[in-house]
C-alpha cells in the first residue's frame, strides 16, 4: 500500500496537538464546554489519524496497553470516584472538591476523577472498535 509522505509528516505534528487539546477539554469540562466524552473522542481521532497515516499495526505498537485495559481502567476510576465520598460518610457519588485549586489544572475533585474515567472508557472503546475494523 502506497503511503503519503505529506500525511505522515502532518500527522506527526497534528497528533500531539490534538492530544493536548483533548486533555484541555477534559480538565475544563465540569464548568465550561467540554468533558470526558468529547475529550476522549478528540484523543481517539488523534490516534486514528496516526493509524491512517502509518498503519493500524503501528498504532497498536504505539499504545502502551491494549484498548480493553483502558476500558477497565476507566470503569475502575469512575467507580473509585463514587466510592471516595462513602469513605467520608456521604452518599455514593457525592461531589467532593479539594479546598484549594491546584495551579494549571484548577479545581480537583471526584467529578474530575469520574470524567477521567469516561475519557479512558471512550478512548478504549472507540479505539478498540476502529482498530478491529481497520485490521479487517
Amino acid at each position, binding site marked *: 500500500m*502506497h503511503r503519503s509522505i505529506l*500525511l505522515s509528516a502532518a500527522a506527526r505534528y*497534528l497528533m500531539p*496537538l*490534538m492530544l493536548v*487539546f483533548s486533555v484541555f*477539554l477534559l480538565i475544563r469540562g465540569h464548568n*465550561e*464546554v*467540554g468533558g470526558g466524552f*468529547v475529550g476522549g473522542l*478528540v484523543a481517539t*481521532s488523534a490516534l*486514528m*489519524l496516526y493509524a*491512517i497515516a502509518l498503519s493500524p499495526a503501528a498504532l497498536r505498537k504505539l499504545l502502551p496497553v491494549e484498548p480493553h485495559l483502558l476500558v477497565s481502567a476507566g470503569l475502575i476510576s469512575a467507580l473509585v470516584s463514587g466510592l471516595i465520598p462513602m469513605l467520608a460518610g456521604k452518599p455514593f457519588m457525592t461531589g467532593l472538591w479539594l479546598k484549594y485549586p491546584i495551579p494549571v489544572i484548577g479545581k480537583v475533585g471526584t467529578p474530575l476523577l469520574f470524567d477521567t474515567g469516561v475519557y479512558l472508557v471512550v478512548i478504549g472503546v472507540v479505539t478498540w472498535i476502529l482498530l478491529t475494523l481497520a485490521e479487517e
Partner: protein
Amino acid sequence: MSELIWNLILLILSAGLVFAFIRLARGPYLPDRVIALDLISILAMGFILVYAVRFNQPSFLDVAIILAIISFLGTVAFAYYIERRW
C-alpha cells in the same frame, strides 16, 4: 448599519452552503462529493465563528476549533477509501 453587515455575512455563508450542497447532490464523481463535504464543514466552521462573535458566546469558538482539527480527518479517510477502490 452593523446589523446589516452581520446579515450580509450570514447570507453569503448560506449561499455558499447552498452551492456546496448542490455540488454534493449532483457531483458527477465521488471525489467531487468528497470535496463538497469538506467545503460544507469549512463553511459550517465559518458560521459558528460568525455566530460566536455576533452573539458574544466565546464557548462556541471551541466547537470551531474542534471542527477545524477533526474535519480534515474525514476527507483523509474518504481519500484513503477512494484510493483503495480504484
